[in-house]
């Protein structure tokens, strides 16, 4: 029997994130899909407008952003202290704390905990940390089925797909596609979708509800992430819209939460700022429908065995880099994705990570380093328009960070002789001194005089092809400003 046939859960697409080609290549493929572009334009446009409306209602929004930034900065500055405090508080509250240096360690810990309970399936609360460490596949390899219960994550899982957005992982799918996926796949993994199901949102949600219900009622172990972890009290917080997370957090006997070490906040009071920033930035709601808050074990109520796995997985690298540290302030609201004109056109799959969009372009190279093709290309996946910074609730200076990462990539490639290196060396020489610059100017003027009747250049061969394939290039005029000035005003100044 093939591995395919033995699987418990739908297989994701073949290949790995890190093995993906550059952003430029992936983007070209995504751009060619008109359905994807129209799904994304519609979805990002709607959520963008909602966010803008909800943010405009809060006159002190900028103060809230500054507070969010300051709280996160302080926490990160003393992260060692707060993490130890978090461990103490959690332990006191009856939870067991595990530390994981990387994805492999975190996955081994979770697999071990599930195996110790003698079960072969878990239900999952939507969580970016578990997506990042690719926990589902690690569990699958150990013969354990991990069922996604967030509606959009369920669509992705049943669709043998990858998430393409932090908050709305199936944003690239429309209703008709979801209906097809449900009809085809649900019956293979549990309660089937009704044969006569339409693509109305109510019917689709109904099918998901029935499909998930049996899994909620059967599961003995749940796996979650956390939006926030309070050091002072050992309290974990999950913010969600559907209530499916709440089912996982309350019904099973054992709860395992996988939490990135940057999720810690010092006190419950600090939560106030983020509970105002997050829903408005992320779903464009004044308050999200479900916020689950729990502190270790409460006897006779909810999970009686509680584990928390604190994961580093590259975060201390980012922490050690003064230019990279601000990325750890991210609360995964996805406002930067929704506003990003690049993301809107290519979608999340081009970024080679569970973290797409502007934050992905800075976070992935921080967490994973810049040795892969995809991570080297991500800092260039932006026009540096700056819209992401404007909407980020914790004021992460994404454009500046992208420029710094480009510097790192350029330094990493120092010594290579490529088109870009040569072009930049020539440009550097030309621009370093006005005498060099004037030589180049004269060359441009000569070219212009050689083609006196041409105002624009059309499609040209390489190296001008990337520009001229779709855009004409204006001819430089025969006389530069400098030459004109000299003629008109003389040599002196």
């Amino acid at each position, binding site marked *: 029997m093939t591995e395919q046939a033995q699987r418990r859960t739908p297989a994701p697409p073949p290949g790995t994130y890190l093995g993906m080609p550059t*952003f*430029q290549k992936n*983007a*070209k493929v995504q*751009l060619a899909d008109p359905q994807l572009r129209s799904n994304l334009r519609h979805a990002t446009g709607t959520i963008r407008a909602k966010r803008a409306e909800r943010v405009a209602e809060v006159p002190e929004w900028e103060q809230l952003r500054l507070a969010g930034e300051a709280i996160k900065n302080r926490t990160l500055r003393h992260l060692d202290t707060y993490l130890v405090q978090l461990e103490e508080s959690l332990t006191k509250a009856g939870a067991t704390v595990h530390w994981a240096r990387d994805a492999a360690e975190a996955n081994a810990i979770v697999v071990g905990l599930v195996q110790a309970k003698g079960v072969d399936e878990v239900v999952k609360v939507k969580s970016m940390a578990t997506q990042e460490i690719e926990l589902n596949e690690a569990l699958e390899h150990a013969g354990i089925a991990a069922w996604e219960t967030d509606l959009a994550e369920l669509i992705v899982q049943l669709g043998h797909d990858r998430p393409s957005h932090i908050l709305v992982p199936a944003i690239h799918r429309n209703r008709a596609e979801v209906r097809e996926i449900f009809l085809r796949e649900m019956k293979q993994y549990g309660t089937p979708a009704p044969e006569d199901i339409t693509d109305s949102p109510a019917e689709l949600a109904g099918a998901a509800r029935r499909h998930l219900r049996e899994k909620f009622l059967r599961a003995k172990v749940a796996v979650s992430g956390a939006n926030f972890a309070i050091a002072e009290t050992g309290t974990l917080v999950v913010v969600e819209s559907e209530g499916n997370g709440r089912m996982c957090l309350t019904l099973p006997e054992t709860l395992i939460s996988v939490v990135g070490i940057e999720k810690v906040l010092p006190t419950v009071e600090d939560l106030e700022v983020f509970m105002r920033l997050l829903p408005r930035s992320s779903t464009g709601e004044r308050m999200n429908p479900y916020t689950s808050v729990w502190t270790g074990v409460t006897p006779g109520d909810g999970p009686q065995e509680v584990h928390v796995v604190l994961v580093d997985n590259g975060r201390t690298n980012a922490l050690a880099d003064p230019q990279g540290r601000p990325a750890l302030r991210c609360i995964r609201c996805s406002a930067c994705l929704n506003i990003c*004109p*690049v993301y809107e*056109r290519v979608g999340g799959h081009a970024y080679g990570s569970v973290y797409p969009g502007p934050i992905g372009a800075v976070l992935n190279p921080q967490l994973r380093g810049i040795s892969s093709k995809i991570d080297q290309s991500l*800092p*260039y*996946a*932006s*026009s*540096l*328009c*700056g*819209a992401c910074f*404007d909407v980020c609730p914790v004021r992460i200076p994404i454009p*500046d960070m992208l*420029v710094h*990462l*480009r*510097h*790192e*990539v*350029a*330094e990493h490639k120092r010594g290579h002789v490529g088109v*870009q290196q040569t072009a*930049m*060396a020539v*440009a*550097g020489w*030309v*621009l*370093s*001194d*006005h005498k060099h*610059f004037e030589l*180049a*100017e004269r060359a*441009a003027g000569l070219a212009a005089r050689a083609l006196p009747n041409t105002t*624009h250049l*059309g499609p040209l061969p390489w190296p001008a092809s*990337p*520009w001229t*394939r*779709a*855009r*004409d*290039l*204006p001819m*430089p*005029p025969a*006389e*530069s*400003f*400098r030459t004109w*000035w000299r003629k008109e*005003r003389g040599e002196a*100044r």
Partner: protein
Amino acid sequence: MAHRFGVGPRVALFATCINDVMFPGTPKAVVQVLERLGCTVEFPVEQTCCGQMLTNTGYFDAAVPNVRNYVKAFRGYDYIVGASGSCIGAVRHQHPMLAEHAGDPGLAEAVADVVARTYDFSELLVDVLEVTDVGAYFPHKVTYHPTCHSVRVTKVGDRPYRLLEKVKGLELMPLEAADQCCGFGGTFSVKNPDVSVAMGSDKARHVVDTGAEYLVTGDNACLMHIGGLLHRQNSAVRTIHLAEILASTEGGAA
């Protein structure tokens, strides 16, 4: 008019490299408007470029000589003006970072000094010369694209609109999704040409939909990109820099 020739301040013109070579009409227009308003304009010949292309591609070391050049050319002037939100933004926002990168405190100090006197053309007019009506006449339908760096880095705010409103004969057509990037992005336009063109095509479509005869911005680089798309599509919409509209007068040619 508040100022007459030789009565206004002495202003150093930062032509910017792309305007110098490709769009000399823009710095000429700046000279014209400023002299009309009574300023004395000087052009320090040592100047080259803000270095943004090198900086934004990650070549910090290669960009440092541009910073030194800028300081050398413009030190000692009270007012330095450039007609590009993007280049002025790069001087203000990136030169201090590059000076720090160079590890040269003397340079950092000189940069801080020069940066504080550096203005986008629209800022110099509205904030320093305190004029919005520069006596311009441009009897055409025009739509304005607020370029990203002029808005988010240089922060010119509504100054360009205030200047355009006062141009006689000009009809300003509202642009849909005006705040969205046109997709130029410097080397982004050739490193990610497909995404850049996809963004630019949407911008060009919105521009055409306004029914305007001219697309105006404060950045010729963005205009070269959007204009390149419009020209390929044989569109009748022409591109023009804000300074050139402001330089047009009833007597002179538009």
